[in-house]
């Protein structure tokens, strides 16, 4: 046996400020950095949505100071149609990439995956550090597009060709704005690939003694499955972005068709395939939806189990279902392209797995509901947000059944129905997962508790607010309200304006609730109650068996040895109502893995 310190000294505890807090190799610091970045990105994304909503609900009013944000997008503080589209694009891009991918996967995963597997750190800490800083640079490249040229791109977060590839002929931001967008996303891909590499190797190779794969908590499984998706999906988006950049800067014709006339000018490109971009983008784009939501499935299960004081009906089936979601997510991407002129047989081929993917999602939900049934759930902010997640996941998922069928999707495509669907199932649900994780893990991450009362107020306002915003979206969509319109002047839309006013008020109300969360987060960071012990929620997984906050190598002098399945609650004959994974107590529930 060689000296263990040789292993622990993979990288020693840092001493300088820079190494400790800036260019840190410690996965916990990197996790917090990711969280801070996601928080900033979420704030920006939310403010953008407020501006858009105010414009949609009360279009004739000027928004004081708006002209400061854009050189020519808001003359007299009133938004131009192009500027609306630019804000919308940036809202989508920032939220999908820098919040929904960054917070539940990169932030919480970085902090807790090594701890939950019983590792001292990720195996490639330099890659891990690079992963964050590359993402950080990617974020600012994207934000920079607000301030250069004629502003950010207006093509939507999906950047459909040919609009995204024809340069400034396409409108403000379609030149430099698109190049910055594609550069930012390509950089982001590199960051996530490096992160995924670390996540996968941590899970496979860094587990402590006794930690078999099936003994990993559901969160660790969720991050592992997500990293497998991230590895394959971001590796495809990056080349797509490179080809898009080349169409701009090198004059190639990957995505722009021949003889395309824009503003009475024929473009010099020849023979490009506009569908090619959609294929490449959605091959990434659909798994991306699951990259955003699968960590949430893990977090919600983890939080609920701890608060129910009993395990889920089936640990294995939950894991297999998440795996099935990940696998199927690659086979369904064509459902985004039902109206793209694709062969109808292809539509049918993509429709079938789209309906099939609802089966593992439904199994997950049924396991949650079945496990919750009859349990004495401890109500706190974390468990409320976990329940809220389930509610949003179901509500958003049900509309997916309709959209999965090409014949119905032809009518609903590109309407507010779709916007409502993905905001509930991917946006709000994933955000609720992030909130549940935040309230639950905050004591371990910073050593203080968040205020529970404010947390519950935050939950109820967000829960009611989110439904008030996104349920009417479905109604608007069925009424034919097309998405991405910046004003409603057509006869069939005018009578919908009151609905838009209501949604705007709801959006401001919900946004205000997020400010309460922000206050709670910052206030608790410095003034929050210090948790009574290292395990305030009486959890069983490894993060609760180490100090608060965890030491540099996560477990101090003694590395953990695992003796139990992750969720041993209310086991007959045990000394308490839970058995920690590290407890050598020789008591087993009948269904524990042998």
């Amino acid at each position, binding site marked *: *046996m*060689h*000296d*263990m310190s040789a*292993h622990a000294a993979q990288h020693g505890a840092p001493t300088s400020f820079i190494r400790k807090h800036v260019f840190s190799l410690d996965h916990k610091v990197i996790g917090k950095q990711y969280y801070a970045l996601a928080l900033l990105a979420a704030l920006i994304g939310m403010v953008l949505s407020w501006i858009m909503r105010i414009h949609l609900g009360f279009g004739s009013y000027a928004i004081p100071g708006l002209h400061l944000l854009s050189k020519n997008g808001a003359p007299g503080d009133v938004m131009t149609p192009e500027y609306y589209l630019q804000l919308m694009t940036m809202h989508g891009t920032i939220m999908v990439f820098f919040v929904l991918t960054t917070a539940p996967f990169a932030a919480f995963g970085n902090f807790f995956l090594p701890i939950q*597997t*019983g590792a001292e750190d990720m*195996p*490639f800490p330099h890659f891990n550090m690079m992963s964050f800083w590359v993402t950080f640079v990617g974020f600012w490249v994207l934000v920079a597009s607000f301030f250069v040229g004629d502003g950010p791109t207006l093509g939507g977060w999906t950047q459909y060709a040919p609009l995204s590839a024809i340069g400034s002929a396409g409108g403000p931001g379609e030149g430099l704005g698109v190049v910055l967008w594609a550069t930012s996303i390509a950089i982001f891909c590199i960051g996530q*690939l490096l992160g*995924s*590499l670390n996540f*996968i*190797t*941590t899970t*496979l*190779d*860094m*587990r*402590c*003694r*006794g*930690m*078999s794969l099936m003994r990993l908590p559901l969160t660790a499984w969720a991050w592992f499955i997500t990293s497998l998706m991230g*590895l*394959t999906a*971001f*590796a*495809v988006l*990056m*080349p*797509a972005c*490179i*080809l898009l950049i*080349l169409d701009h800067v*090198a*004059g*190639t*014709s*990957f995505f722009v068709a*021949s003889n395309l006339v824009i503003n009475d000018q024929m473009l010099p490109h*020849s*023979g*490009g*395939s506009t569908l*090619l971009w959609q*294929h*490449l983008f959605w*091959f990434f784009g659909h798994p991306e939806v699951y990259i955003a939501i699968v960590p949430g499935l893990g977090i919600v299960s983890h939080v609920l189990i701890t608060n129910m004081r009993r395990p889920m009906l089936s640990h294995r089936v939950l894991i297999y279902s998440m795996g099935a979601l990940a696998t199927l997510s690659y086979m369904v991407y064509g459902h985004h392209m039902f109206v793209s002129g694709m062969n109808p047989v292809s539509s049918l081929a993509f429709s079938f797995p789209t309906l099939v993917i609802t089966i593992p999602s439904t199994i997950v939900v049924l396991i949650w509901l079945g496990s919750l049934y009859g349990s004495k759930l401890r109500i706190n902010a974390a468990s409320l947000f976990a329940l809220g997640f389930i509610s949003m996941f179901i509500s958003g998922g049900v509309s997916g059944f309709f959209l999965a069928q090409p014949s119905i999707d032809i009518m609903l495509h590109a309407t507010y129905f779709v916007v409502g669907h993905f905001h509930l199932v991917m946006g709000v649900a994933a955000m609720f997962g992030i909130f549940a994780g935040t309230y639950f893990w905050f004591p371990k991450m910073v050593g203080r508790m968040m205020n529970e009362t404010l947390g519950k107020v935050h939950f109820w306002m967000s829960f009611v607010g989110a439904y008030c915003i996104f349920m009417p979206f479905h109604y608007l969509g069925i009424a034919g309200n097309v998405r991405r319109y910046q004003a409603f002047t057509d006869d069939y839309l005018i009578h919908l304006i009151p609905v838009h006013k209501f949604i705007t008020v709801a959006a401001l109300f919900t946004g205000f609730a997020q400010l309460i969360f922000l206050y709670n987060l910052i206030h608790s960071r410095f003034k929050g109650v210090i948790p009574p012990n290292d395990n305030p929620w009486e959890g069983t997984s490894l993060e609760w068996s180490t100090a608060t906050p965890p030491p540099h190598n996560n477990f101090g002098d*003694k*590395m953990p*040895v*695992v*003796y139990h399945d992750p969720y041993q609650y209310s086991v007959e004959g045990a000394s308490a109502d839970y058995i920690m994974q590290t407890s*050598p*107590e*020789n*008591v*087993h529930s009948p269904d524990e*893995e042998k």
Partner: protein
Amino acid sequence: MATTVHEPPKIELDHLPSQGSGNGGRRNLVPAGEDLRRLKDYSPPPASTGIWVGLAAITMTFAAFTSALIVRQGGAADWHHFTLPPVLYLNTLVIIASSVTLEIARRRIATFMGGLKGGDQDGVASPARWLYVTLFLGLLFVAGQTFAWMQLRAQGFGIATNVSYSFFYVLTVAHALHVFGGLGGLVRVIGKLHKSVLRRSTLDAASRYWHFMGVLWLYLLLLLWMRL
């Protein structure tokens, strides 16, 4: 070329678990109250797993480029077929040769470390020699690719001339950038060897990456030859 005899490198045990630290192993259950000593203690060092994960990502990237090429060519009336610059075939021989020299180097270093039995004195005396040869061949390959690009440009065929040239440049440049990554890995291995801190898993990972670059190039050559 370095011929100095120096101390055999220290082989760090690759994260072998000790005192409950490190790798759990793949099927490493500990029933409570039972003897820990009968556990299977070993799982592969992260570099061995990591390299396969990295290669999987690179495979996906080139798969995406390939499908882009096939889709773009399928619907295009403007595709311009052209003959590949002959120097590419020479480059192919160079990169194959570099894989052979790297494999020789790897085996000699393994012998030097005492990891393998047998081996000759010459190899033990200069473990880094074949690594330098590999490095040289790698640089020669990149130089050869650069020559091919220059040759095409001199003939007036730039990246925007036709989409077939676009794909040629994109695929070969993307491959060359990845080859630079491999060269970086070799330099790192040589540096660690000289400092006597080389790990077996680092050497193996760098070798796998390099061989993969060779295989990837053979695939790309076949693709370009068939499609362009």
